[in-house]
């Protein structure tokens, strides 16, 4: 009888091919535009107070492209309403923002620039500000063959830079490609990651970023305040607490975790996730192994960041 049950369950679970793909090497982008985008990304000229840049909340050098704060601070130190997601590998996300309201990077880049608590600029402001700079005028002339800088070109350059922000060759990717081996604990961690069900949502190139999911499947997730979830857009009660599944790439560098930044460590977030999403309690040993696996997802610094601007 027991054996019957076991055989039964083999039939229940069908295992597919590898659910995670390595980050492509040499993802295509226009280098000239990307370098201009790099400069714009770093430049507080894009904020109304000349004090905040894209990079202020997307720390591409040491913050894994995300913000160390629970929420970000924009112009006049205004607080944002959600934890800043990483900009690294964002090109592989199927939608942008926590609630997926931007279809692509172009739509996304528009958001923070205009957001009154972030950079707080209009299109005209951006064009006017940049046109006062001799350097930008000559750069735009050189790249876009135009004497009048247009907002769409600014966005285009920034997006091109973001396309360059990929972190290939993580130890895990190289393991998948058969170039490098992982420690037993890390391999066990990956196996657990699949066995306990993390893989259900964290799959694909980005280990996430390809679906919207409800936080609190097996136990209701209680928020301290209102966060901009999918419900805030659709007003469908089914979508309460539905957010885009965040990528786990470079996850060790992007603390704090979750949309509300409530998990300070990887362990905290693994515990929270197993409780709310898996409806199970993992042993300490299991958690440690999974965390070890997660740490193999740190990729190389994007090549473009080594360029001088």
């Amino acid at each position: 009888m027991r054996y019957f049950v076991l055989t039964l369950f083999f039939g229940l679970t069908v295992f597919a091919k590898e659910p995670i793909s390595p980050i492509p090497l040499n993802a295509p982008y226009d280098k000239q535009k990307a370098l201009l985008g790099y400069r714009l990304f770093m430049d507080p000229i894009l904020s109304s107070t000349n004090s905040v840049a894209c990079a202020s909340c997307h720390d591409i050098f040491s913050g894994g492209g995300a913000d160390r704060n629970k929420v970000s601070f924009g112009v006049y130190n205004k607080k944002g309403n959600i934890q800043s997601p990483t900009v690294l590998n964002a090109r592989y996300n199927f939608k942008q923002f926590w609630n997926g309201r931007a279809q692509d990077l172009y739509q996304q880049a528009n958001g923070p620039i205009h957001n009154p608590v972030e950079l707080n600029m209009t299109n005209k402001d951006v064009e006017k500000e940049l046109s006062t700079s001799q350097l930008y005028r000559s750069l735009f002339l050189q790249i876009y063959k135009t004497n009048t800088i247009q907002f769409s070109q600014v966005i285009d350059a920034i997006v091109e830079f973001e396309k360059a922000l990929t972190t290939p060759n993580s130890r895990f990717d190289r393991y998948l490609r058969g170039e490098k081996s992982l420690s037993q604990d890390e391999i066990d961690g990956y196996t657990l990651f699949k066995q306990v069900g993390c893989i259900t949502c964290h799959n694909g190139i980005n280990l996430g970023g390809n679906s919207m999911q409800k936080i609190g499947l097996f136990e209701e997730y209680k928020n301290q305040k209102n966060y901009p979830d999918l419900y805030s857009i659709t007003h469908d009660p089914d979508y309460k607490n539905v957010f885009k599944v965040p990528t786990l790439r470079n996850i060790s560098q992007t603390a704090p975790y979750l949309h509300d930044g409530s998990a300070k460590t990887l362990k905290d977030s693994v515990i929270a996730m197993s409780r709310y999403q898996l409806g199970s309690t993992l042993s300490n040993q299991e958690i440690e192994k999974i965390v070890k696996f997660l740490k193999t997802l740190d990729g190389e610094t994007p090549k473009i960041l080594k360029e001088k601007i």
Partner: protein
Amino acid sequence: MKLYKNIFFLSLIVSGLFYIISSFYSYEQKFSSEIKSFRASISYIERDNSDLKYNILQSSIYAYYNQDETAKYVNLLQSDYDHLKNESILDDSNYADVKSHVNQLSPIVNDKINSIQKYLIINAGIKNSFIFLSREASKSNALFSSNDPIHLQITSLITTFSNARRILDSDYIDSNVNLLSSDVNYTQEQKEFITKFNLHAAYLKNNFKEFISLVNIILENNINTKLSSTNKVFDNISTHDTQILNYFTFFIITISSILFGIIIFLLIKIANENKTLKATQTQLDYLLTHDKLTSLFNRYEFEQLVASPNTEYTLLLINVDKFKQVNDLYGNSIGNILLQEISKLIQLEVLKSYIPKYFRVGGDEFAILLQQISTHDANIVANSLSNTILSHDFVVSDISIHVSVSIAINQEYPLLENADMTLKHIKKLPEIRYMFFDKKMNFLETIKTNINTINLVEDAIAEDRIVTFYQPILNIKSKKIEKYEALVRIIEKDGSILTPYTFLPIVQQTNLYQDITKIMIENVLQKAKVNSYRFSINFSMQDISNIPLMEIFFSQLESSNVSNLDIELLETEHLYNLSMVKDFILKVKKFGCNILIDDFGTGYSNFSYFSELEIDILKIDGSITKEINHNSKKLQIFKAISSFSDAIGTKTIAEFVENREIYKTIEEIGITYAQGYFIGKPSPILLEEDDITI
């Protein structure tokens, strides 16, 4: 003009046609590309939809699944639908029905995407529950004693769930499915197991129905149904449009064919007009090159033909003798008929072998150009031409007319001019009817020289280069210069001196002659006035008979008040009006003039003059004097003239005394005066006594 109009009309039609066809073509292109684009959009959505279904099915089966593809197709479905909505053909009001179908598709697509979204959420929970259950079920063996009925409950639950999942039928899980029931006797660990197990079993129990219904919604064919109905409506309209387009194509082809026909018609018309034009041109060419009256070639054609002397022509120039008289006598119309008859007559059979060309080159002049004919044959031909005309009895209006022709034969360029000259020559010789042009006639050369000489004299008069030279005449007895003969000279531009022999004979035929005489009169009178020598001036009969000139001479002679002027009468054989000469001598003697007879002893010297005219001095011709020492006959003539003059009491002058020997001889003979290079050459200034070395 009509031709240009046609061409204008033609190009208008062609450009109009081109415009219609090209705009039709671009419309047709646009239309068909819009149709293609619309159909492509539809098929993209169909593809996205079926790819999505496949993905969803896979993800529902596999324990874990890479959702990147699913995400990609969801995004594609959304963007392809947006693309379909923006198809430009939908802006066409004819496609309003299609547009409303496309719009109706919007909620279906949104529903589908929304369902997929919800499916993915529930699917995550269901998967994780299955994963959990499959992991936890095995733990029950260790946790519970083997005879615990909980095993049966677990097996029953799992069988239910696995069947339901395999068959994807929610009916397998109904509200009657019982969760594990706990027992107060269970240990804490056993209770926790049951709680966790039930958490997932409850999730499956509560959500499986929803899960199945979502899968069914996703797998539903509603998108494809709507797409195919959209396609159907689209096909209906577009087929109709295509049909209209086909009708229009037919219409265009018909119009094109008609226009093509018109173009062909116009082209033929233009070709015909060109033909007429060519005929007109041929006619004009004929008129330009032919004589209207005789239909022979005209002078223009003659000149054209001989202008390029590539061919060696022999010209027979035929002039109708005394044609003017025929015209005057019988009238122009008969004259014309006569010319027509002659034009036919001259086309002799015998000429045909010489490739003849016949021309009327003047009112009464015909020309025949022959090739490859010998001089001998040309003469024979001319003779027979002349005879033919001469013997022909021209009967015009019952009048019988006989005419003769003069024929010049010429092979030398300029053809017509030389022949003309030859004709003039013939006309002077009544017995000659035809003549070959001879280079030795040299008419041209003479005319040229004459013209040059006349120009030269004219210029000399205008530029004051007619000068008077004076040659001394010595009294042999006194050994003193007593007289000077005034001689005309022209100083040329280069300073050389022309003697009258080169120009006077030519100038004599013109009015310039009297101008020269006037200059001489003026100069000599001036000279005579201031010198005590006697001066002689030469007068010809032409001078004496020129009454206005003589009036001037006498008035000047009178006013100058000189008495040392002598007159030399020239060309004594031509003193045809003796009474006039007589009057002149009488008149001139009143002014103390002596009369000299020049060049005596040559030509037809008329001794009768001496009885009629009061001659004072006899000038023996130089040609006699020159040779008296070598030619005894001349010496005898010289002596005879000397004795004759002694006898009638006139003085004598010997000309051409060129040397001492001649001088000695004439001195012995007893000649009064000597003139010649031995005495002194003619010079513009008078020679002084000292210059004489005798």
